[in-house]
């Protein structure tokens, strides 16, 4: 039933912990996002408790993410791959390719026309191509996250950053700055090189495949644009992209 809270979803990611309350249609009625605390049990119990207190009753809980096994009282525990697919399917209602760029990994998930996971590829071996990678480099360049788009949109071309290893890219970017290269061009080049890496992870996509994006990095418009051009198609950012995994977890116990 619309607007009637039916389930809670918890997504304990490496960087942030997300909790949502959904109604029977999958609309998010309430949510919390916090940096993930090392004591996951306590944090998730508190967040679920807060939301339940607001609702005045307990709801079934679905858990996902790296810390999913440590969510007390979860009715169902599923991997973030399945939950992201379910969350994305609920939003788009048809087959799609989901690019989820989170703090620790990047996932490419082919969601079938029944909402099931068709196939997936992941970069979880290193920080390159993840939110963490961008965070490190932006920190080094002292560019606040909300100014990234401004810089990138001002650059008329990207300055090639060939390394995609966080450590090497960081020193490469520093040398480019030292050479006197424009910050705007460096940032654009950085996003382009990252997007190429993600595109190669995605492999050959069918020409008619629609691509949607989730995860914290989807809030970075420069990354979305770079990815669109690397994949040569429109990349649609899902509403509340950070909450797609938690939404999928909640849907699984709806």
């Amino acid at each position, binding site marked *: 039933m619309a607007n009637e809270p039916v389930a809670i979803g918890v997504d304990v990611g490496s960087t942030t912990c997300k909790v949502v309350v959904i109604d029977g249609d999958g609309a998010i009625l309430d949510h919390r996002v916090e940096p993930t605390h090392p004591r996951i049990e306590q944090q998730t119990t508190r967040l679920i408790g807060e939301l339940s207190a607001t609702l005045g009753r307990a709801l079934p809980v679905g858990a996902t993410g790296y810390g999913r096994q440590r969510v007390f009282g979860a009715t169902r525990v599923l991997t973030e*791959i*399945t939950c992201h697919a379910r969350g994305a399917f609920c939003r788009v209602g048809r087959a799609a390719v989901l690019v989820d760029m989170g703090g620790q990994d990047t996932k490419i998930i082919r969601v079938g026309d029944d909402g*099931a996971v*068709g*196939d997936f590829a*992941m970069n*979880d071996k290193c920080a390159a191509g993840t939110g963490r990678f961008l965070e490190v480099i932006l920190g080094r360049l002292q560019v606040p996250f909300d100014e990234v788009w401004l810089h990138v949109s001002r650059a008329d071309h990207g300055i090639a950053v060939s390394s995609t290893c966080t450590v090497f890219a960081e020193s490469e970017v520093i040398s480019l700055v030292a050479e006197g290269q424009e910050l705007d061009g460096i940032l654009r080049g950085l996003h382009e090189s990252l997007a190429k890496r993600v595109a190669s992870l995605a*492999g050959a996509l069918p020409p008619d495949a629609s691509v949607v994006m989730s995860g914290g990095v989807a809030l970075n418009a420069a990354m979305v644009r770079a990815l669109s051009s690397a994949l040569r198609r429109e990349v649609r950012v899902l509403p509340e992209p950070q909450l797609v995994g938690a939404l999928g977890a909640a849907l699984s116990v709806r």
Partner: protein
Amino acid sequence: MIGVVGKLGRRRLEYEVVKRLVGPLLTEVESARARVKSFRKRGHQPKGPFGPPLESARKLKELMTRHYLEGRYADGAVPVAWVTSGFPVEVLRPLGFHAVYPENHAALCAVQRVVPHLSEAIEQQGYSRDLCSYPRADLGSVVLQETPVGRLPRPDLLCCCTNICQTTLYWYRALAAHFHVPLVLVDPPFVYGEAKPHHREYVRDQLEELLDVAGKVAGRRATMDEIVEVTRLAREGTLLWGECLAESRNRPAPWTGIDGFFHIAPIVALRGKPECNAYYRQLRDELRHRVDKGIGGIRDERHRLLWDNLPIWFDVRGTATLLAERGFNFVCTSYTNAWAEAGSRIDPADPLGSAVIAYTDIILNQDLGKRYATLARLAEEYTCDGAVLHSDRSCKPYSIGQLDLKQRLAKDLGIKVMVLEADHGDPRAYAVEQGHGRLTAFMESFA
């Protein structure tokens, strides 16, 4: 070196005592202990997702323990050869060689999780961590003189066949430099399509040369009758191993693919010996009995998977449990199957000619099309609804092309396929949590 053989000295005496008295005695003690244990446990239903353990597992342990125990006393008593897994060992057996399989030994080190320790010893000498973990473990074990099996006998001869990879050649050269013993090489050309007659001739010449070298080290040449007999035994053992594997075509499969990874040891290390065949006869009968009774390797078999490549030795149990808890079983693996195929081509009627074919046409020495055909055939014969292709950081020749194989298997057979990035021996190259997460996501996609 030639004088070593036949000299019934102190070493030989010790060796014979261990082989004929101590080994059998330990086996008896061990089986008596096991009988007491199983008597105490009678009526207890094993917990967990697996079916009752295989009775033969105990026999396997005894067999391999005796093999390594004899090995400790072999050097100085009988000629000792260190041999790659795909080497035509049939030529050595009649000469009384004790054959050590460094790969088998390295797998044992991997199961015991000592590879990082052994590997570090040679990494410090400049060997790269990118090398296969088998040679790293083995060379580390040689340098440190440490092994979980107590002691490996010093080789008199090194026997390398590059039909599995070129790494073996560099590895055995390093061993030759360390031990100052001869290295004999059998180098079958990589096969695209079918092997050409001149390829076969080239391999045959090398086998003839091998007969000479092995004969010089052992002090006499093997007669053709002896080679025929060992070839017969090796073929029979291979066919028996194939029969064991084939029992998993039944539903439920009477054992797990993971069991198969362990029970492969005799066909690798004791091929051509009567005790190897006796063992597989017992195992096959036990599996048949389980099939008749409907006993599965896992309690609730809902999905049947194919595994490609070597196992993740240090996490075999963890992987199997994760899967079994959700009703998944690896009912066949291309790795265990390879050992049922190669030896079945050898023929006592033409030992050398058939050895040329058997040892040239093995899975890692063939093009991707052949590998695909093998995987597709196995998936169909064992009615698999999914496949996990282990992209093994150590074993590049086995892992190359898996992305193409994955796409073809999924498209042609309509089964779900995933590539799992891991390593067969070095836990430093595999994040267990992430690997299990991926396997879990893969299993969830069957819902």
